[in-house]
């Protein structure tokens, strides 16, 4: 079974099955596929196949417990007539745009602060990363209590500081306030990812570049613009693309905090798909709603593969 052993004295008349399998597994062309096949099998059965099922459901009138029939694109067309769906479409872009934008700016700022020499660095990093680690559904419960219409600590603080008029806004019961609340929780939860990743990118920028720029007379703003930002572009690209797809398809925060919100004002595709697909039972329409995530997913994947991933596997 050993490779490279020279001068085998005699070849056995019949190679045992175990030895033959062992020999095969030693060759890259066989071992590779064998090792990859469990993952491939799992993903084909439980990702690719359900995805095709979703495609089929969306062009059928599937309903829980009934046989389904092909109806073409009627689901997609009917959805545009529904006010709840049109509102959801708008919500998704507003939510994602605002949340990712703030996360980017705040993440960059915080990463730059953390890049300075500091005391208690490990403790601070631990504290900053904590919101990302705790299960979202549970930490959103904390925010739900913080935004409660009667007992909100946010309102209490605002009133105490004189920033709000009594009794303070009903965060989860009014249209634009609810969207603000949901965006704030998403920022709180997603910021650590931005911070830690951008920090890693910042750390890898060699100091000599900054020193050279300073010697050439560049002030701090110019150094940021001409040295930091260009070299951070790949990292920023990765982080923004990942965050976009996960924010766009978010479910936990909206479901726990507002369930879709006052008059559908915080519904996202995921929560509306659950409401229409599972709670009502119209699987065809629910699948059509979920599939609206697909174009954005495609754009993100294409952008990732084209602009960001420079390594070939």
């Amino acid at each position: 079974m050993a490779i490279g052993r020279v001068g085998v004295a005699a070849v056995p008349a019949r190679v045992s099955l175990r030895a033959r399998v062992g020999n095969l597994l030693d060759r890259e062309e066989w071992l590779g596929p064998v090792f990859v096949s469990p993952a491939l099998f799992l993903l084909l059965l439980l990702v690719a196949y359900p995805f095709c099922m979703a495609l089929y459901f969306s062009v059928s009138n599937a309903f829980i417990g009934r046989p389904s029939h092909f109806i073409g694109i009627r689901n997609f067309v009917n959805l545009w007539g529904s006010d709840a769906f049109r509102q959801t479409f708008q919500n998704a872009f507003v939510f994602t745009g605002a949340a990712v934008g703030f996360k980017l700016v705040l993440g960059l700022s915080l990463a730059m602060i953390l890049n300075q020499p500091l005391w208690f660095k490990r403790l601070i990093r631990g504290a900053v990363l904590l919101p990302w680690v705790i299960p979202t559904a549970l930490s959103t419960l904390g925010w739900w209590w913080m935004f409660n219409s009667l007992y909100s600590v946010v309102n209490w603080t605002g009133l105490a500081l004189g920033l709000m008029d009594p009794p303070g806004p009903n965060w989860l019961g009014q249209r634009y306030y609810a969207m603000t609340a949901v965006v704030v929780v998403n920022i709180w939860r997603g910021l650590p990812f931005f911070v830690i990743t951008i920090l890693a990118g910042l750390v890898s920028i060699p100091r000599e570049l900054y020193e050279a720029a300073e010697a050439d007379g560049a002030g701090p703003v110019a150094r940021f613009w001409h040295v930091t930002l260009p070299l951070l572009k790949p990292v920023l690209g990765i982080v923004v693309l990942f965050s976009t797809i996960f924010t766009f398809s978010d479910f936990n925060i909206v479901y726990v905090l507002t369930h879709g919100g006052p008059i559908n004002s915080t519904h996202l595709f995921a929560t509306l798909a659950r409401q229409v697909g599972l709670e009502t039972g119209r699987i065809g329409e629910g699948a059509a709603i979920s599939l609206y995530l697909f174009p954005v997913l495609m754009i993100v994947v294409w952008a990732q593969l084209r602009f960001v991933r420079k390594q070939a596997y």
Partner: protein
Amino acid sequence: MKLPTADTINHHRTPGGPAGRHETDVPRHIAIWKFSKNAEPAKEFIRYLLGKREVYDEYIMSADAFNLPVYEKLQDHPVLKTDPKYAGLKAEGVQYHCYGWPAPPSDKVQLITNSFIMPNMIAKAVTGTPTKDAIVWAENEMKKIVAG
């Protein structure tokens, strides 16, 4: 534990109109799965709970009028006298229907219910949209759903 709000709220039934007072109620079904492991004891329990008047009364009393059924003969039930505020719950001359009446129950009615069109209509009306616009909005949404 009584909050101050408790003194300022009360119950009222759905407003009535020239055609009478109509309300919805959820029809109650009691069923035992075919694959149940304890079918006989379950049947015994149902006979016990619903078959004996005293037990049924106890069932209604213990829920503080929350599950008082809509039978005419039970509208004078003693549970309504346990708290002065329950007096508003007395349902005289109310006609009960399933959701979506006079339409037959269907998945379209279920979608209307699950999309919270009625609560949203009222929410719109109390947060700035003119009442007539809110009603027209709700009507349009329901028409689209019923059309398929």
